């Protein structure tokens, strides 16, 4: 299959440029303009050195966290453009072509899912974990700061490959799940599926290392007295999520690697003939894929727990229940993967058992909702934007839970599988569940990171646009699914579907307003940052340790690592008026030095991925060589930390 590949450029040629459709061409232009615009802006402002030393080579978990979230927000916009294009296509394609040819429509639904899961939700979650968890447990940094930077840069490399696919070549048409045999070279011989494989493979390695990093950080770096059952809920959910990452992501790495071997080296793991079996892929993929859902949503549950307690000015109700429920969900998440393919023809016993296992997850999830409800009960609720998103989540999420239980019933699943009912269900979990959680977290912790608050009015506007937009965009899809409309449909001939699809498009437009409101909120807040400034470091009357330090926190986080003696220790200290006691530390205070390891590994990952996609093998091996050389070079670096001299003794409250 490499017979047409040249040694220098592999199968890359001029035909890789997106001149095949004006829509694709404009997309490529916008992407290029964004990239070039960024480079010009930094040059024009003369900020290259500051960018390099302050951000790109930084190993500070706070800087890395912010970079993750910036990446996530950029990709949110990119993924949303795909979404609204699909909605427009389906709103107009009753009995006609619409404006997108099939192949382009397929690329769009594939890239929408891939971006939203891997390059929006995952970086958003990882960014919040990065910024907040060390502050919540009283740590000066994560356990492995350089590894943390490498994780970020590998995620960035994956996202970069995604963006490059828009300009050079085409993206996958096989959907975000990449089911073989369609994703095999027999049916999709181009570079599209290879882009999909290598972008999630490269970023997946980074994610796996993030999981390891945070499990070690949470288990080993807590302040004295921060027992496990005193950890804030966000840290607990971050711990469970990280454990899930460690166990689940290898399955994704293996399944996509095997698919790459099929495609590139002509092997037969998942092909139709030669002894391959496509169902092996489905099993492996969903052994990762189902826990992945919980990897994303557990930290969102953690954020809702923090937000609901803070803005109800009340202790979190049922803390032990919430912790146990989180752990139960984490374990059960590995027992239900088969519900993604009830229709493969397994026997009734198998399907019934996996259906029931799936419904059992509704128990701990239901408990969580009740615990948040009773946290609000007899509280004093402040309707700041993070709380609005939380209340919206509680109302919408139970609807998604209900449709999830319905999908888990095999006889119902036979009729609703592969329909827009399924699409509505998982968006119902991922938008109000995951994304509302992350947006709540973003607005809740923004003043901690930047020292000024985000504008409330634009925040509230954004919430209402998202909330109503979501309802309009996805409730019709539930109905359409029950009417038998398949997902991923480019055109259709059923006149009853069109009115509902037009409503869904209107919903997508409202969500667009929600995204514009987010941009406006950031813009207005930066402009009014003097008026919105927060001198206290504790603008919400917070309860957990991250609010005990100035905003933004110093690079070493805690002047004195506090000794913790209760849950919500900072809140207790404020009530009693006695500052948290400082722990004794034997070593001098030091912070890790900047490292070029991150950017090196990012470049290496990008070269390996791009080379493997286009069969430019020298580039792939050069990438591998860069990675190996960087690791060897790093092992010769003797001094990895800078001592910080400052006067100890400042109080921590």
């Amino acid at each position: 299959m490499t017979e047409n590949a040249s040694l220098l450029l592999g199968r890359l040629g001029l035909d890789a440029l997106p001149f095949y459709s004006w829509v694709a061409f404009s997309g490529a232009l916008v992407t290029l303009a964004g990239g070039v615009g960024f480079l010009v802006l930094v040059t024009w402002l003369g900020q290259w050195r500051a960018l390099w030393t302050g951000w790109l080579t930084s190993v500070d978990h706070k800087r890395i966290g912010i970079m993750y979230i910036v990446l996530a927000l950029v990709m949110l916009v990119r993924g949303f453009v795909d979404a609204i294009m699909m909605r427009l296509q389906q709103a107009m394609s009753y009995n006609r072509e619409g404006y997108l040819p099939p192949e382009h429509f397929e690329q769009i639904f594939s890239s929408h899912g891939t971006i939203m899961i891997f390059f929006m939700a995952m970086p958003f979650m990882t960014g919040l974990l990065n910024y907040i968890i060390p502050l919540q447990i009283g740590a000066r940094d994560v356990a492995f700061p350089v590894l943390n930077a490498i994780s970020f840069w590998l995620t960035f490399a994956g996202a970069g490959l995604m963006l490059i696919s828009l300009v050079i070549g085409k993206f996958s048409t096989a959907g975000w799940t990449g089911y073989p045999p369609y994703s095999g070279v027999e049916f999709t011989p181009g570079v599209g599926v290879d882009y999909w494989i290598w972008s999630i493979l490269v970023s997946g390695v980074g994610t796996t290392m993030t999981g390891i990093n945070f499990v070690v950080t949470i288990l080993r770096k807590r302040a004295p007295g921060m027992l496990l059952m005193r950890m804030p809920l966000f840290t607990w959910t971050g711990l469970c999520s990280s454990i899930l990452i460690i166990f689940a992501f290898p399955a994704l790495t293996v399944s996509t690697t095997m698919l790459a071997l099929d495609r590139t080296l002509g092997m037969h793991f998942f092909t139709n003939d030669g002894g391959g079996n496509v169902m092996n892929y489905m099993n492996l993929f969903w052994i990762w894929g189902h826990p992945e859902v919980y990897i994303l949503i557990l930290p969102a549950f953690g954020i809702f727990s923090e937000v609901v307690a803070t803005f109800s000015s009340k202790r979190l109700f049922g803390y032990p229940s919430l912790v146990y429920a989180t752990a139960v969900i984490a374990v059960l998440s590995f027992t239900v993967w088969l519900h993604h393919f009830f229709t493969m023809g397994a026997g009734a016993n198998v399907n019934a058992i996996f259906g029931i296992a799936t419904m059992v997850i509704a128990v701990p999830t239901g408990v969580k909702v009740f615990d948040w409800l009773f946290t609000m009960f007899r509280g004093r609720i402040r309707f700041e934007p993070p709380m609005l998103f939380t209340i919206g989540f509680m109302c919408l999420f139970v609807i998604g839970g209900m449709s999830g239980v319905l999908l888990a019933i095999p006889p119902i699943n036979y009729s609703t599988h592969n329909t827009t009912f399924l699409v509505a269900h998982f968006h119902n979990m991922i938008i109000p569940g995951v994304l509302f959680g992350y947006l709540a977290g973003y607005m809740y912790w923004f003043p901690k990171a930047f020292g000024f608050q985000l504008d409330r009015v634009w925040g509230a506007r954004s919430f209402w646009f998202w909330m109503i937009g979501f309802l309009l965009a996805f409730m019709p899809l539930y109905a359409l699914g029950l009417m038998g409309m398949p997902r991923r449909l480019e055109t259709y001939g059923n006149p009853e579907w069109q009115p509902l699809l037009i409503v869904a498009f209107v919903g997508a437009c409202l969500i667009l307003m929600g995204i514009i409101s987010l941009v406006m909120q950031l813009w207005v807040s930066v402009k009014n940052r003097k008026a919105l400034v927060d001198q206290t470091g504790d603008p919400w009357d917070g309860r957990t340790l991250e609010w005990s330090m100035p905003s933004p926190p110093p690079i070493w986080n805690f002047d004195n690592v506090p000794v913790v003696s209760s849950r919500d220790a900072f809140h207790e200290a404020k009530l009693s008026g006695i500052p948290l006691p400082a722990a004794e530390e034997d070593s001098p205070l030091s912070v890790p030095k900047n490292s070029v390891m991150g950017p090196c590994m990012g470049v290496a990952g990008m070269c390996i991925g791009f080379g493997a996609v286009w069969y430019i093998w020298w580039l792939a091996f050069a990438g591998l060589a860069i990675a190996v050389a960087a690791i060897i070079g790093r092992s010769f670096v003797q001094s990895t930390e800078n001592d910080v001299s400052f006067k100890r003794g400042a109080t921590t409250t």
Partner: protein
Amino acid sequence: MWQAFNLMLLVVVPVILLTLFFAWRYRAAGGKGAYRPDWDRSPIIEVTVWGIPIVMIGILATWVWDKTHALDPYKPLPGSEPLRIEAIALDWKWLFIYPDLNIATVNELAFPVGKPLSFRITSEVAMNSFMIPALGGQIYAMAGMETQLNLQADEIGTMQGRNMQFSGDGFAGQTFEALSMSQDDFDAWLSNVRQSNSHLDTASYADISKPSTDAPVRYFSTVPPDFFSKRVAHFMGMEHEHNPNVKAADQ
């Protein structure tokens, strides 16, 4: 479905109403409710919030067990001897073989009303999912594998069937008409098909296997014996053919 739905509404509606009610009653600006900032546990509430979902899921679980077995698509339907139909997914059309009647059709599935239908399903190409929404659920069609489905139409009429699993450029138009007709009409339809000059053989199969969208209905008056089983089995050999379009029916 509606039983399960209504049962869950018993929990979901109160949760939504309580969320909105609590938000309003305990609002900081002007809320009238009591304020108990340190109240964070109540054994009664804890037992209730674990108990109610457990009981509910327990009820649903027994119901799911029964229904999954009762509505197992592999389970033969009661009544008369079923009409056997073999469906093969192609790019982007369906081939239906009636092994007992020795005929085959493309993109048209006819059957007598009230007669149980017993399907064997496979794919020659990417994974497909066979479904006639008006009659029941879907089952995957996978190359080298055989799945089964049992359906029955209780009314005369024309229904749409289709592939539900995305399978490439022609996916949107991969539909067929399912015609439920009286026994007399079916017999007439059958004799019409038997008058066709086309026969399902290596050449005609290679022809209909070529990818095409919105393929017209075709009739084949004869079918080689065990055609379906051989299409399933040939993937299990070790030959490495990469182009399904010119793949000959190897027999």
